[in-house]
């Protein structure tokens, strides 16, 4: 029996909606983080999972989005809801440039991945030298006490950030579900599986790949803006770092690349694992620096080795759920 995922989704949504009522503020911040990674992972998934273009420098878009909105707020007092559009514009532009350069010159696979890394690193060092954006010292957005909700400037109690991110994550899920069922989705899958064959069928691979890059970078820009106003401090070394790029993609890859629920499941599993490990190790008294990441790496290794398509496809099969399109 194949169940539709809608029932499961409804249950999950209901749970997430009422979570703040019984979760402490720390648990809430963890939940917000999970949703953040779920959302950003979903954004990355569009480019890599759906369209098959491996991007290992996605922190570029998070960073540019964050700095764009952050700088507008810091220097001109322009609120995030307006800054958002500038951020999206800039990120889409960057994405299109990279996409254009890569696809026109026929760069794909590992070389494309390396190209994205190079752009991210280049930007990181570049931003380190831009004093207008704070340079290596970072950009600090002014915070105020959290008892008022100031939606215009996106300031308020943790609950506000939680629901915002929930809305984004939900929106991303809906968008991706729609995309997968649309013509774009089918063309992307064709290009992903075999670009040559797809082209021979008359699909303009270049145009559709560019679309994937544009959508992905636009979505990621939004998470960058959220990042800026949630964390309120931006450092080039951190936000453009290759570690961040890797962190972003762990969720979707572990969860299930190219699937709808993969990024969400992956983000949840990894964040809870990371936190759980910290607690477990503290309780055991094994607090040697690095031990947590070793466990983390081992878990990653095991998942990669034994669940190559990610956790979600295996789990879905178990639960008898069939997604829109099986990989």
């Amino acid at each position, binding site marked *: 029996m194949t169940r539709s995922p809608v029932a499961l989704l409804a249950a999950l949504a209901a749970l997430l909606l009422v979570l703040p009522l019984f979760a402490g503020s720390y648990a809430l911040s963890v939940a917000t983080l999970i949703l953040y990674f779920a959302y950003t992972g979903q954004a990355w998934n569009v480019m*890599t999972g759906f369209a098959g273009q491996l991007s290992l420098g996605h922190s570029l878009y998070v960073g540019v989005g964050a700095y764009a909105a952050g700088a507008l707020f810091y220097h001109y007092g322009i609120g995030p809801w307006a800054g958002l559009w500038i951020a999206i514009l800039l990120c889409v532009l960057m994405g299109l440039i990279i996409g254009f*350069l*890569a696809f026109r010159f026929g760069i794909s696979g590992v070389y494309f991945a390396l190209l994205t890394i190079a752009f991210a690193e*280049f930007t990181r060092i570049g931003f*380190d030298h831009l004093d207008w954006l704070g340079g290596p010292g970072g950009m600090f957005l002014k915070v105020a006490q959290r008892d008022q909700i100031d939606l215009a400037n996106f300031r308020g109690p943790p609950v506000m950030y939680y629901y915002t991110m929930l809305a984004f994550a939900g929106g991303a899920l809906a968008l991706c579900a729609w995309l997968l069922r649309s013509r774009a989705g089918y063309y992307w899958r064709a290009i992903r599986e075999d670009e040559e064959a797809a082209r021979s069928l008359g699909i303009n691979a270049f145009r559709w790949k560019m679309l994937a890059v544009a959508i992905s970078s636009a979505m990621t820009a939004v998470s960058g803006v959220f990042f800026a106003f949630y964390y309120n401090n931006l450092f080039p070394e951190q936000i453009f770092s290759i570690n961040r790029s890797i962190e972003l*993609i762990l969720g979707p890859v572990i969860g299930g690349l190219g699937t709808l629920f993969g990024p969400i499941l992956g983000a949840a599993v990894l964040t809870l694992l990371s936190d759980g490990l910290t607690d477990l190790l503290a309780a055991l008294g094994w607090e040697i*620096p*690095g031990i947590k990441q070793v466990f983390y790496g081992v878990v990653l290794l095991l998942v990669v080795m034994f669940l*190559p398509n990610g956790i979600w496809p295996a789990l879905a099969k178990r639960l008898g759920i069939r997604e829109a399109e099986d990989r």
Partner: protein
Amino acid sequence: MSWDLVANVVVAGVLTGLVYGLMALGLSVIFGVVRVVNFAHGEMMTIAMYSAVLIFGSLKLDPFLVLLPVAAAFFVFGYVLQTGLINPFITRPEHTQFMLLIALAIIMTNALLMLFGPEARSVQVDYQLESFELGGVLLDKVRLYAASVAVVAAASLFAFFRFTLTGKSIRACADNHLGARVVGLNVKRLYGLTFGLGAACVAVAGCAMVLLVDVTPSLGPYYTLLAFVIVIVGGLGSMTGALLGGVLIGVSEALAGLLIAPSAKSMFSFGLLILVLLLRPQGLLGKRS
């Protein structure tokens, strides 16, 4: 900007670049033949560096003297890693390979952190601070020796691939995987050998590098990226390309540091990578595939 200054900087860049080149050589061999995106390459070199530190610490042996045993150990390590763990991933999609090696890199880096702690370690041999003087140019002794070792190692590898039967078989695998199997070559074993050789290269590079640079557990990613930049700039599958790429990066970074801001010198390497990827993806000396 005096001639002395430029000469010193360029010479240092060349010498360091040769060691970079050796490290990249290992990756060129692994990536070029086995087609594995070895994102744990820098970590492997870091482990080699720590081995040299340990040996020096306990036995007071100069890293140059322990090159061969360390390289042999790494050869075995590489062989086992490839045949035992990585082999099934060769045919799998790139991102899975990448995740596998990332997981390995995370484990390696943090295991090193657990064992050695975060503070920098180094090997300080007696002649550490000495240099030869040639005209106005100071030739740092350790750098010179390290570079010489790199050249010798590269030459040996070149000879191996050119003149031995195994070497030729490996090249055959790289050129035409299917054809090699058709001819009856044991591809799995050859891949293992190749990874082992790449690892041995990295080990030698590590023993040389530890005299030039202090080692910390987090050194890995930097060198992984550097190796990829060099391999792509120099050209995949070309050994001279790897060395040349190394020297090119070494010198260009040094000059960029001298003429522009030192803190921006890495920008230059990445800019170069982007240009090469776009304009000449096979690299300077690589074959157009």
